[in-house]
């Protein structure tokens, strides 16, 4: 794929070696297999799958989503097959793609997070764990663990103790400052950071005077959250040395390049997959073109290259 003149796109995110810096955001790409008919998933830097807890989980009632200007509000509620179901139904096929698999995990207790991590560490074919402490759509678990640095760090430390896999906490954007969260995660043993999750949001049907979503609230994703995410990525990169996996509103290579310049090592395409499944590949190509045009030999030169006066 790369000729000698072509810049190097390979990156390493906390121990996960990726052929290029582009993965997909958890929950927007199913378990990898669903989109396999629609793009060459072997070209991705990694595949990040939908959140998994210990047991199967039904998710929220419908409606689970609503479109808003420049974005999408979802409250899927982390429906999933549980660890055993994931390993049996999806992992074999995922392994065949030959790209690193990042599993997004969550739990309703700290112990559950750790247990999920341990179980996933026993099976081959998983490259790393993204620890979701920021899902706004479940009552227990999710954002309840991500609202303050100490609680979040407790989850990260518990997971860390039970797995040799790279641990990547996924942080919430609705915080006053990302620095304290980034530092707490680093101290708790995180190998990289993933940011950001969706912004808690609510949409009301004014005719019925009811929330549109059955879950009342959901998480805002898509183009409109990109400038918010870039600020968080920049702040996290200033605070810690950990590699950052950045996401939020990537639609084209441009938004991904902003993340890299702000300090991200890799990026994930989320909501845009729904609109155009070829987005991750266009982003990979766009990053390569940018590097060529700016005479950079390695995407690492882009990471953190922001000049501030």
């Amino acid at each position, binding site marked *: 794929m790369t000729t000698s003149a072509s810049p190097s796109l390979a990156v390493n995110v906390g121990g996960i070696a990726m052929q290029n810096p582009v993965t997909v955001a958890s929950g927007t790409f*199913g378990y990898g297999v669903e989109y396999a*008919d629609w793009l060459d998933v072997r070209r991705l830097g990694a595949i990040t799958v*939908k959140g998994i807890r210990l047991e199967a989980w039904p998710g929220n009632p419908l409606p689970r*989503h609503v479109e808003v200007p420049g974005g999408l509000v979802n409250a899927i509620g982390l429906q999933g097959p549980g660890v055993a179901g994931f390993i049996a139904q999806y992992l074999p096929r995922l392994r065949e793609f030959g790209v690193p698999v990042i599993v997004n995990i969550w739990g309703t207790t700290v112990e559950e997070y750790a247990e999920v991590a341990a179980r996933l560490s026993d099976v081959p074919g998983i490259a790393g764990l993204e620890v979701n402490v920021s899902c706004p759509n479940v009552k227990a678990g999710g954002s309840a663990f991500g609202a303050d640095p100490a609680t979040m760090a407790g989850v990260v430390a518990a997971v860390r103790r039970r797995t040799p896999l790279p641990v990547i906490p996924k942080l919430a954007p609705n915080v006053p400052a990302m620095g304290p969260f980034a530092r707490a995660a680093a101290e708790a043993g995180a190998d990289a950071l993933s940011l950001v999750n969706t912004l808690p949001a609510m949409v009301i049907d004014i005719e019925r005077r009811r929330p549109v979503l059955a879950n009342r609230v959901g998480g805002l994703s*898509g183009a*409109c959250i990109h400038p918010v995410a870039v600020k968080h990525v920049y702040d996290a990169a200033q605070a810690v040395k950990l590699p950052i996996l950045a996401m939020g509103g990537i*639609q084209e290579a441009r938004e991904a390049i902003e993340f890299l310049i702000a300090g991200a090592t890799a990026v994930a395409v989320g*909501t845009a997959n*729904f*609109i155009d499944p070829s987005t991750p590949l266009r982003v990979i190509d766009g990053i390569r073109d940018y590097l060529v045009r700016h005479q950079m030999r390695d995407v690492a030169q882009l990471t953190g290259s922001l000049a501030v006066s």
Partner: protein
Amino acid sequence: MPLGEAAILEQTPVSGGYCLLRLAAPELAAAAQPGQFIHLRIPGLETTALRRPFSIYRAGAGELAILYKRVGRGTDVLATLPAGTRLSVMGPLGNGFPLASGDRLPILVGGGYGVAPLVFLATRLPRKGVVLLGGRRAADVLCIADFEALGWSVEVATQDGSLGTEGLVTDLLGRHLDAGAPPAELFACGPDGMLRAVGTRAIAAGCRAWLSLDHHMVCGIGACLACVQRLREADGSIHIARVCKDGPIFEARTIVWEDPA
């Protein structure tokens, strides 16, 4: 089926706010099965606007048609696009209707744009049968000529009585499900309330009813879990299916209807 583009061949208002859209899409047309849908990206909408799903109305000879109703900003924009415009299309998606073996009389029940997939179905079923069409008023009852041209017998009910019987399309069902009527198999597409009523009557009459569900969708291919539907398996266990991928067509007996919100 790779992600493709299709050019608009024709865009024609029909009646009651409905429009016919014909697309040049040879591969898609060749693969399409009745009951499947396409997921259209509508250009000119704001950033992050999702695709819109539409049932396949006709497919063949290198082209594919949908029949859509203007109901919101997506379909409003769609209606303004001139012939020649290229659209990004995902499809054909979903499971499609089972093409019955022909040993039972097919009865198609359609409301509003729900007739679209039934027309396509009528072209492919091995045996001709009866079509029951409903709508608020005459302008909402589409495709009568399509079905008649295919040799199907059509009955109509409108809520205001402006065409056919006054009442609901489900009122027309009774006589066809009578003990004395020939054994039937139902295929229905339309609003939830109608589907539920068709399902209830079919179950009572002991015949199968294939219902095409109209859940709002995000990805359209089974990845996001926005469109789920609880199903009761034969063994009584509950299974969460995705309408876009495992459906949109489910047999009435399996569907667990949620209480009206």
